[in-house]
């Protein structure tokens, strides 16, 4: 077996040798830090490991999720433990999908100078500035769609010169879309009514009392007659 090649990383400025190929998160752990704050899902979904880093011989500060990015030789890095951003408090039953609703709760959205720093600082590569612009136009559906993959790490808000809290404003946009703009499913409404009228009670009761062998047979029959993809 070949010997593992080691690289140097600078965790909060301190030099450490770690094997190459590790994610930033695993490199931090290899170096001896037991993470309490700074690791959540470890798979790119929770936004707990927002990281600011700089590559060797470069002046530019870059951002990433520590769990989804491989550490490089000469990297200077730190995780961001918390972003103390403001979240508007609202009653979802009382907000309405009118065009200026986001601006009402997050007036600072209007201060966007279209510098695109938010988009450049998004580790999910979302078009953050575009959804802020959509909010300014009152296009809630567009804002909801463009922000959908947001993991709420807070890096956009941390770097925005206009002090906008993009990720919280986007949460409001999506909830308004989900609750008011998307229409209720007729199938779902019908099924809930049926359940409440007790339509399935007898059938389930029968299944619960069915002898095991008979139930197994019925199950395999059901599997065999599984729905096929429609053409």
């Amino acid at each position: 077996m070949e010997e593992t090649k080691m690289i140097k990383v600078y965790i909060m400025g301190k030099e450490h040798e770690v094997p190459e190929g590790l994610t930033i998160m695993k490199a931090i752990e290899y170096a001896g830090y037991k993470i309490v704050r700074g690791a959540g899902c470890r798979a790119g979904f929770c936004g707990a490991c927002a990281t600011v880093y700089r590559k060797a011989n470069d002046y530019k500060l870059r951002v990433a999720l520590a769990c989804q990015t491989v550490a490089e030789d000469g990297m200077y890095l730190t995780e961001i433990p918390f972003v103390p951003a403001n979240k508007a408090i609202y009653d979802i039953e009382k907000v309405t999908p009118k065009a200026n609703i986001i601006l009402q709760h997050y007036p600072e959205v209007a201060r966007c100078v279209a510098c695109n720093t938010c988009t450049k600082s998004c580790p999910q590569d979302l078009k953050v500035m575009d959804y802020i612009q959509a909010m300014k136009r009152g296009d809630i559906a567009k804002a909801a769609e463009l922000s959908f993959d947001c993991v709420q790490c807070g890096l956009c808000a941390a770097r925005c010169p206009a002090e906008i809290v993009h990720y919280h404003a986007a949460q409001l946009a999506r909830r308004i879309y989900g609750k008011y703009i998307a229409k209720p499913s007729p199938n779902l409404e019908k099924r809930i009514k049926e359940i409440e009228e007790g339509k399935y009670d007898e059938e389930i009761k029968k299944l619960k009392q069915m002898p095991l062998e008979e139930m197994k047979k019925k199950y395999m029959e059901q599997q065999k007659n599984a729905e096929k993809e429609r053409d």
Partner: protein
Amino acid sequence: MPRRSVIEMELIRGYPEYMRESIEMVAKTREARAKEVMRRLTLEEREEVLKGFHPDYKPDAKVEIKIGPSKGEKAPKEVERLLEAEPLIDESDVDLTKVDFDVDILIIGAGGAGTVAALWAYYSGVPKENILMCTKLRHGDSNTMMAQGGIQSADRPEDSPAIHYLDVLGGGHFTNNPDLVEKLVMEAPRIIKWHESLGVMYDKDANNNFIEISGGGTSRFRMHSAKDYTGMEIMRVLRDEFRNLGMKVLEFTSAVELLTGEDGEVTGAVLFNMETKQYYVVRAKAVILATGGFGRLHIMDFPTTNHYGATGDGLVLAYRAGARLVDMDSVQYHPTGAAYPEPIVGLLITEKVRGLGAQVINKIGKQFVFPLEPRDVEAASIIKECYSTENYVVTPTGLRGVWLDSPLIELLRGEGTVVKSLGAMHRMFARFGIDMSQDPILTFPTLHYQNGGVAINVNAETDVRGLFACGEVAGGIHGKNRLMGNSLLDVNVFGKIAGISAAKYVKHKHSKGKLTLNHLKKYRKELKEAGIKSELKSPMLLPDYRGKAVLSRKLDIVV
């Protein structure tokens, strides 16, 4: 294949040249395979592949639990060790006469189940000041957040709760608690409606109905999704609602022991602030355990899809307080964990990839299993292909895997489907130079879910009075194997039931119980009688991934 540095190896669109040869074979057979449907296995064939290749059936996988209410039953050895370990604290460490938080309901765990329970306890009339939630990480850092594929609910005219019921029972090898399954399937449509009322954005068609696909072992299209961020979308909406209501959560604060009263009922818990290292005494009329599962115990040395805090703490806490465990002998390995590239090994590749049409393909471009068998059967079949044939692919670091033919989705459902419906997956691989809409991805089973857990009844009550459990920590719902899309459903249904039941319970309970650690005395006595002397302490709280070189030079100096 010798171990080689991946970084030094020249990669072609993310893959080394030797893997490209197999990828070409997969591409070559794609068009013909698009129409090829593999036969589903019979119940007997399922049994055979499970016995031969599922990790649960390895002779050294499970051991008997030696003490406590489930004594004599089998559990993974990694779990059994923790159930028989020394408590983290004893009576002399804590002053139980000084109460830091005096509430009606304490909820331990702040993922999907905990947050749902908190909201429904509040809806049921418990004032928010009397509900306290705590979590070892941040609010929402949980397996719920990471659930990608979807949530089951039988709401299409072609489907029914009864069909859903039978799918769940068959998937669980008919070992599930039927009453819990009934609750699960009957409550499902109402959960989806509740989500929509809160503003969860589910994928819908032109008629406003849900876009639903199938999952392993489901006989109808029943999977509701929000792209492949379904859990994240649900979790962030629930969390936002919790915050809007001004409810209280203690983050980076884990429960280290439950407290019990004179009759053995649960009366609160000792919490530990992991940042300041201080403890808090919580007195509560009811405690809801929503601590999630045990993926981070790395059962059988498998990598895991689970979040950082999934160390089975709830099992330990409940067991010491006298709660029975069920189905602990079965562990879920998700059929498709990432096997390449190395930095994401073990992370989840959602079943939705197969739900959308991707087939499981071996090294020579052939299918060897129906892609949507129940998870345990699918996983065992992949292990079989990798360890009893020559038709597996080896990664540069020596791992074995088979292909998931994701480009087939584009062929079946049109160009752009992968990016549109599997944004998270596409992004994860793109970060390493792989375009999964063009090239297949390499997979191998990964530790995914704790099928069993703390026994509950239809009111989410455990065997111990005052203690409720919901979500992955609870057992019986899925029997010996859970189907896709039933865990997001489970955390919502049983979180809701736990919140409502606990609210009812505290309404009728006027006095709060004594705060003691008497159950630890009993527990220690049992350990002694069984001749067990463990070096280990539990609950684990967090796994330790620090480098060995550092740990070998560690000093315990307090600074």
